[in-house]
């Protein structure tokens, strides 16, 4: 019989984040009142983060399979086949709330968590990326958050030894009270050496590995738990503390142990720590799990079962080992100076049994903890449609050149060098394309192949039209991979939204998911892993809907690639794709005209595919090495970036008639690329494009030390570069 020495009051239930009907459901499930440890366990399993209770029914609509997909969503990370017996394993995950409270540790442990997800599956991490959104620059907290988050990401990744090769940084007042810190990790494993969370075999040892368990990270609900343990020390902050050194050791020890053949199943202890990892291994394998908490290595004295089960101390793993191999496994872990303890065994009872100091602290049905979690079809309303804005109705700038100069030096479009120079992006010696380009390229081991990696979404589009915005996020990632010569293979999504309990934000979520699904289907770009982060709001003010997409593509020959830099003088600049001068929701409209309105540019997925496939084939056949996709800021910004990257100017002499110059230069029509090629090749390309009906026009020629826009508006590269590079460093030192 389970004793229950803490009374489970309605207040206590509420403090654990369970609604009365959810608690009722749980009591009915177990047929009695739970113990405090059991209440903690169910609150961890049934919260939004672990149970996906608000998002699950909508996520089902996402395409998750393709011939090259080895493992879709549901494991620690997604797995795709990249040929030669190799698999690419990757995932993106948010650490938004912790990073707002304690930016350095929040961001650092975000990176640590996602790296762990990847190497748990047997992969050695080879690249890391991120997606960051901060509040408006003028907000007093913003510089401190930027500084802390960037240092935290660098601090963890640099020490762990993985190159941080790409990412996205942006600012908006809608993130003032709720920043976004999404981290993505990419690893490599042999396709026949991938490890999963599913436990098998009855009576097999369950082993605890890594760092010791402390009171850090025990969820906020325990703030209220003083009443059941008044003697406990002062409450630790709920943000965990990262130790990249321990993680590096854990990586090496885990990979060495996996090689030994001793591992049956493995699960990292991430959110909800020991609880979630143990339940998942048992539930997936249709087995019960029995744990003896007296065996758990603890950092602090007198930890209760409740605390151990909910601790989110970092750098820990749980494994099911082949019986008889404990000694060998232990030797490997002790070599790396890490804790190793057999803390339980698998059973055939389908019960999750927790023992501590001779008492049973919890005895719960294991399958139901996961499967019977509540699922909600929350009410949602469609976001109101925004009218399309006619280009003619948007004020022309006094000078297009001045407008462009303003944009290249604006917080969102300026160089993020200040950020990525704090990340070791060169370690491992395989970074073919460094941060700042359309997509990063990382060579696969010593071979010929390469991976193209990117993180993208345009939140203002998602807010104006969730469906089109969702499509655009996927299309943009697909386009960025294409622009470097990669074949887009799969994505991981990190869905950051406001409260699902408000029908408007739930509507944004539903709309974005539908758009993402549609684009993934049309572009053969399935979702293989992801993370949902809801309740991103403060005082009722939600963030912009931000479904960040992490894309992975493959280059069969990594030496055949493209980058955005103009390389030579006298090359023809070709625009691929149709221009209508779409200014609704454009950067020009927002940052030059001060208007945040209109419908975002529509995404025609068939055109995306056709234009992108055409450009990729030009790169792969060696005809083109200078390519840049056209996105925020339109053609003008893309040209400026190409000129600055290569330190070669350009003159734009022609532009299609029929709409105002500023709409041509700053419009954000989709499915477009800029190329620079030898003039002879240009003629061939225009001919080939014409033959298959792809719009392609020559805009001008590279050369000189200025960017000259139509109407002889010249901006020197020096001016452009100064504006582009200055904003962020000046801002961080309080100069701007």
């Amino acid at each position, binding site marked *: 019989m389970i004793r229950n020495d803490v009374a489970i009051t309605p207040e206590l239930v509420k403090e654990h984040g369970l609604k009365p009907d959810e608690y009722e459901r749980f009591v009915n499930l177990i047929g009695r009142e739970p113990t405090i440890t059991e209440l903690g366990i169910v609150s961890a399993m049934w919260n939004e983060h672990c149970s996906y209770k608000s998002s699950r029914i909508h996520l089902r609509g996402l395409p998750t399979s393709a011939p090259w997909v080895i493992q879709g969503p549901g494991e620690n990370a997604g797995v795709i086949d990249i040929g030669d017996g190799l698999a690419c394993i990757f995932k993106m995950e948010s650490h938004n709330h912790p990073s707002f409270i304690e930016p350095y540790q929040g961001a650092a442990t975000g990176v640590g968590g996602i790296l762990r997800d990847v190497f748990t599956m047997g992969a050695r991490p080879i690249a890391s990326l991120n997606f960051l959104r901060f509040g408006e620059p003028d907000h007093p907290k913003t510089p401190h958050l930027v500084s802390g988050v960037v*240092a935290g990401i*660098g*601090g963890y990744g*640099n*020490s*762990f*030894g993985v190159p941080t090769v790409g990412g996205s940084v942006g600012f908006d007042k809608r993130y003032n009270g709720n920043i976004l810190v999404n981290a993505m990790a990419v690893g490599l494993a042999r396709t026949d050496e991938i490890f999963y969370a599913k436990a098998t075999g009855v009576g097999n040892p369950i082993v605890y590995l890594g760092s010791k368990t402390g009171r850090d990270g025990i969820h906020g609900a325990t703030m209220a738990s003083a009443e059941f343990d008044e003697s406990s020390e002062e409450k630790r902050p709920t943000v965990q503390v990262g*130790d*990249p*050194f*321990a993680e*590096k*050791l854990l990586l090496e020890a885990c990979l060495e142990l996996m090689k030994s053949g001793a591992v049956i199943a493995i699960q990292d202890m991430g959110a909800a720590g020991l609880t979630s990892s143990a339940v998942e291994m048992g539930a997936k394998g249709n087995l019960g799990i029995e744990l003896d908490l007296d065996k758990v290595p603890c950092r602090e004295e007198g930890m209760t079962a409740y605390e151990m089960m909910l601790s989110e101390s970092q750098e820990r793993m749980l494994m099911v080992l082949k019986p008889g191999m404990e000694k060998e496994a232990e030797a490997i872990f002790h070599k*790396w*100076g890490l804790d190793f303890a057999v803390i339980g065994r698998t059973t055939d009872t389908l019960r999750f049994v927790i023992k501590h100091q001779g008492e049973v602290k919890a005895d719960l049905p294991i399958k139901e903890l996961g499967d019977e979690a509540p699922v909600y079809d929350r009410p949602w309303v469609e976001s109101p449609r925004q009218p399309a804005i006619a280009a003619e109705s948007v004020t022309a700038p006094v000078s297009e050149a001045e407008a462009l100069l303003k944009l290249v030096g604006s917080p969102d479009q300026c160089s993020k060098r200040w950020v*990525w*120079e*704090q*990340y*070791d*992006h*060169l*370690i*491992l*010696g*395989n*970074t*073919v394309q460094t941060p700042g380009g359309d997509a990063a390229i990382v*060579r696969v081991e*010593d071979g010929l192949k390469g991976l193209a990696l990117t993180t993208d979404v345009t939140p203002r589009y998602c807010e104006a039209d969730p469906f089109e915005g969702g499509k655009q996020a996927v299309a943009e990632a697909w386009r960025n991979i294409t622009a470097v010569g990669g074949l887009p293979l799969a994505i991981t999504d990190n869905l950051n939204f406001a409260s699902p309990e408000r029908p408007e934000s739930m509507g944004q979520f539903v709309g974005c998911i539908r758009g993402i699904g549609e684009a993934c289907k049309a572009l053969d770009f399935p979702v293989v892993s992801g993370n949902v982060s809801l309740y991103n709001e403060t005082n009722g003010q939600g963030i912009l809907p931000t479904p960040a997409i992490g894309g992975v593509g493959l280059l069969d020959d*990594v*030496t055949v690639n493209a980058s955005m830099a103009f390389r030579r003088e006298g090359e023809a600049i070709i625009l691929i794709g149709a221009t209508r001068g779409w200014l609704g929701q454009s950067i020009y409209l927002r940052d030059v005209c001060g208007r945040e309105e209109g419908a975002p540019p529509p995404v025609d997925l068939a055109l995306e595919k056709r234009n992108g496939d055409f450009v990729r084939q030009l790169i792969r056949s060696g005809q083109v090495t200078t390519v840049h996709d056209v996105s925020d800021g339109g053609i003008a910004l893309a040209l400026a970036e190409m000129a600055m990257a290569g330190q070669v100017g350009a003159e734009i002499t022609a532009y299609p008639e029929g709409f105002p110059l500023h709409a041509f230069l700053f419009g954000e029509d989709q499915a477009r690329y800029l190329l620079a090629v030898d003039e002879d090749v240009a003629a061939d390309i225009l001919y080939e494009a014409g033959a298959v009906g792809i719009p392609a026009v020559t805009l001008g020629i590279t050369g000189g030390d200025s960017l000259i826009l139509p109407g002889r508006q010249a901006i020197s590269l020096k001016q452009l570069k100064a504006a582009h590079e200055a904003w962020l460093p000046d801002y961080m030192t309080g100069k701007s």
Partner: protein
Amino acid sequence: MKSAVIVFPGSNREGDVLRALQSAGSRVEKVWHAETELPQGTDLVVLPGGFSYGDYLRCGAIAGRATVMDAVRAHAARGGLVLGICNGFQILCESGLLPGILMRNANLRFICHRQFLKVERNDTAFTRAYAKGQAIDVCVAHGEGNYTADAETLKRLEGEGLVAFRYSDAQGHITQDANRNGSMNSIAGIYSDKLNVLGMMPHPENLIEDLVGGTDGRGLFESLVSSFPRAA
């Protein structure tokens, strides 16, 4: 030629330097920090980049006192070659094999970027493949690379020609702008008295292929390999 790359817990560029040595023609063996001896016939010992023991104490302070360092010191005392890169340089300073110390970068941030170095002399086992005064294009990645020493030590290093590399611009000019971590005299690397121990903050091992940025780092490894007869 045979190299021993020492692996401390927290080393993370051991694979990078191993690849650079192998591609220059060296045989390479990894040596665990807890070993008490170097492999038979070791010509060169390399202390790679990383965050040994997490570098939660002073960088390199614990590694400088690791078991294997006695063997490394003995190897150096016999005139054997030792190369410390980044964390390896910090470890050499902590272990007493090189003078001075690496402080936090002047801007107090970790920095990773391409960096030109001026090769101060090309008559050592490490630099014979370069020209004297040549500016080589490599990279840095460190939070604590700000070389600092007392006035007397600096005077001796300069006077005896023990400065190996300085941060420079692309033309080999020593400028304030090129010295981003704030090192005294723009020092990026130094030799021991007998020129057999080199510590340097930049990473030549990451610039050995055109595909990943360039080949200016190769010269250092080719110099080392060419210092030994092919049969060895």
